[in-house]
Every structure is written in structure tokens, then in C-alpha cells.
């Protein structure tokens, strides 16, 4: 447990010293979401119906953009090898890095999402649900994304490849996350969506760290 806290604090401290990295992802998220109306036109009803999907897709892209950095710096300076040979279980360290990634990208995205919701004219209730669905769903992006980041570690063309690997796996998150918000607009109770999103979070919290650890061992073999 001490190892978890230590690694997490280290992640956060490094991020605080380079604030730009986390901030760029957040700005990217808002820029992508703001581009859609230019493409489809400013019709209010259409934008309201699209809002959740746009916010979620922007969140997926922002996550993919931020993921290559999850292990890259530690790989470059040899810290990752030390983590592999450390007596503490690798899964714990990886989980701490995933938690750090979520606190620095997923959480800010969820908190900034109402801004996009307002641009698209979402009612207050749907705004709340957008935050809730992003809070439940973005950890999945960090968990499964960590596996993708570990698999593409040190691979040429890693960024685009990472997107190709993890975006199809994010389909359920997108369906249930955006579905929860859209369903309230049509007066359907969103709890089923949120429960399924939570179930997917539970599954990926098992699969993601396992796959990330295995992939890290392969990458540094």
C-alpha cells in the first residue's frame, strides 16, 4: 500500500512540475468538442441531441492522446525497469500509475464537461449526468488504455497504433456513457446505463492492470 501511495504521489508531483502536459489534454478536449458545431451547423435541437456523444468522443480522443506518455518517460530514463525488479508487486505500481493518469486527465475532463454541455444547450439534469457518466467511465479509459500504452511502448508509430488498439475496446464505454445522458433527454431512467458502465469498469479493473503488467514484462524482456 505504501508503494501505491508513493508512486501516486510521485506521478502527481511530476505532473505539477509540468502543468502544461495535463492542461494541453484538457484544452484539446474542449477544442475538439467546440469544432463539431462548425461542421454540422448551429441548429439547437440537433446539437442538444449530439451533445453527449460529442463530449464522450472528445474524451476518448483526449485519453488516447495522453496515454503514450503514461510509461514513456519512465521507460526512457530506466525507472520502469526499476519498478519491474522492485520487491513490491508490479500490479500495485501500475495501478498507482493508472490512478495518477485518471486524476490528471479523466477527472479534469469530467469536471470540464459541463462547459461543453452548456455550449450544446443541455438541461441541468443532463449536465449532472454527463459528469457522473464521465466519472464512472473515464477510469475505464485509463485502465484499458494503460494496457494499450504498455503494448505500444517503444514501438514505432506508437501513437496512431495505440488509437487503433484501444478505441475499438472503448465502444461499450461510449455506448453506455453517452447513452445515459441521451436517455434522460428522452425521459428514460439512466440508471441501467450507469449500472452497465459500472459493470464494465469492474471488468476492466481486472483485465486492464493484468494486461498492462504482462505487456510491460514483454516490452522490457
Amino acid at each position, binding site marked *: 500500500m505504501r508503494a501505491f501511495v508513493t508512486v501516486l504521489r510521485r506521478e502527481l508531483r511530476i505532473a505539477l512540475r509540468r502543468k502544461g502536459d495535463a492542461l494541453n489534454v484538457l484544452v484539446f478536449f474542449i477544442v475538439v468538442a467546440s469544432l463539431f458545431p462548425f461542421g454540422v451547423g448551429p441548429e439547437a435541437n440537433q446539437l442538444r441531441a449530439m451533445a453527449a456523444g460529442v463530449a464522450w468522443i472528445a474524451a476518448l480522443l483526449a485519453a488516447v492522446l495522453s496515454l503514450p506518455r503514461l510509461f514513456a518517460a519512465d521507460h526512457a530514463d530506466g525507472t520502469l525497469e526499476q519498478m519491474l525488479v522492485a520487491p513490491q508487486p508490479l500490479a500495485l505500481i501500475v495501478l498507482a500509475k493508472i490512478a495518477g493518469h485518471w486524476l490528471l486527465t479523466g477527472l479534469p475532463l469530467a469536471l470540464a464537461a459541463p462547459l461543453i454541455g452548456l455550449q450544446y444547450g443541455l438541461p441541468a439534469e443532463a449536465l449532472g449526468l454527463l459528469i457522473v457518466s464521465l466519472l464512472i467511465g473515464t477510469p475505464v479509459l485509463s485502465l*484499458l488504455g494503460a*494496457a494499450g500504452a504498455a*503494448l*505500444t511502448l517503444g*514501438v*514505432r*508509430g*506508437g501513437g496512431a*497504433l495505440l488509437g*487503433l*488498439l484501444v*478505441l*475499438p*475496446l472503448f*465502444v*461499450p464505454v461510449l*455506448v*453506455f456513457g453517452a*447513452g445515459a445522458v441521451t*436517455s434522460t433527454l428522452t425521459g*428514460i431512467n439512466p440508471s441501467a446505463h450507469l449500472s*452497465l458502465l459500472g459493470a*464494465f469498469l469492474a*471488468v476492466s479493473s481486472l*483485465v486492464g492492470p493484468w*494486461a498492462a503488467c*504482462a*505487456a510491460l514484462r*514483454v*516490452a522490457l*524482456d
Partner: protein
Amino acid sequence: MTSRLLQFAAPQAFFPLAGKLVPWFSFLAGALALAGLYVAFFVAPTDHQQGESYRIIFIHVPAAWMSMFLYVVMACWAGLGLALNTRLSGMMASAIAPTGAMFTFVALWSGALWGRPTWGAYWVWDARLTSELVLLFLYLGFIALKSAIPDPTRSDRAGAILALVGVVNVPIIYFSVQWWNTLHQGASVSLTRAPSMAATMLLGMLLMALAAWMYSIATALSRVRSIILERERDAAWVQLQRDGMRAAA
């Protein structure tokens, strides 16, 4: 018996065995496909709702079956390779992937051609179509990851991890897409097929499915032979074989 089978886990022993099996499976694939196509075009009756266009089913359904089945087979080989550290398993997984991707593409393409006359559109966001599309992306991701890593051992293991994560996700994706589709589109278009299929239609489809199996085995085996040669090119037995072929020529 087991030990005699297991000796083929060595690429060197498997290479000649695969070479002997490929012609047999190719022949079976050709014969079954001919029989299946004969039944499909000359024996099976015309569908009273869809007319002749339904005959795409004889390509479409076997391709869709194979595309899903091959992903599971590929993941099994990949998992086996990861667990037992056998070299051949990883090679089998990489040999199966292109065939699986091809069948996924054929299923989508023939589905689009079938959809035009029956649904009036090449593409509808139907649950089955959409999950097939995601399956194609998963295949492409697997192939792209494997080809991006030059070291064969590392490439096999990384691919195996991805295939295993994918195989866990395939049913989740399938059901989530189904859920999404029912919510967004209400009553979605479905295949308006006659409730009970004529026996000859079923026969034609089964023959074509068997042909697809045989074809997959034949292509996977001949592809794995190339992979074995490529990876073992510095091994003594490959050099010997090459020298033997040169002498014969």
C-alpha cells in the same frame, strides 16, 4: 500418442507436416465450395420474399461465422503460446489473423451488397453489422501491432495479450452494440427471412461453411510455413532444405 502429437509443436517437425496437409485441405475446400455453390445456385429454391438476391447468404453467413470463430481460435493459440511459451503457437496466431480479417471484410462487403436490394441501403447501423465492423478493427489492430514490433518473440507475446483482451471484450462489445441499437432506432431492420429455411438452403450453407473451414485451415497452414521459414532462416535444417532445393534445381 500425446507425445507423438506434441513433437509437432517444434516448427522444424511441423513444417513438413503442414506441407503434406495443405494440398488435402485445399482440395477439400475446392470440392466443398463447388458442391456448395452448385446447391446454392441450382438446387436451392428462390426465396418468396427476397427473390434471387438472398443467394448472397451462401457467402455471407459462412464468412460471418468464420470471422468470429477464427478470432476465438486465434486467441486460443495466442493464449497457449503465452502460457506454455511455445513458438509455434504465436506463429499460428499470426497465420490465422489475415484470414480472419479477410472473412470479416467479406462478411461486411457481402452484407452491404445484400443490404442494398433488401433494406434499400448499403449500410445500416444494425447491431450485427456494427459489431462485425468493430471485429474488423480488432483484427486490424492485432495485425498492426504484430507488424510494428520487429522482434518475433516480443511481437508474439504482445499480440497474445491483445488477442486475449480482445476476446474478453468481443461479447461485451456485441451486447453493448445491440443495446445501443435498440435504444436509438426502435424497431430496427431485420432479416426478413422465411421462418423455416428450406432444407436445401441449409445444406448449401453448411457445405459453404465447411468449405470456408477447409480454406481457412489450408491458408493458415501454408502461411505458417512461410512464417516458420522466415523466422528459422538461420537454423541448420532450413539451410539444408534450401541447399537441397538448389541442388535439385
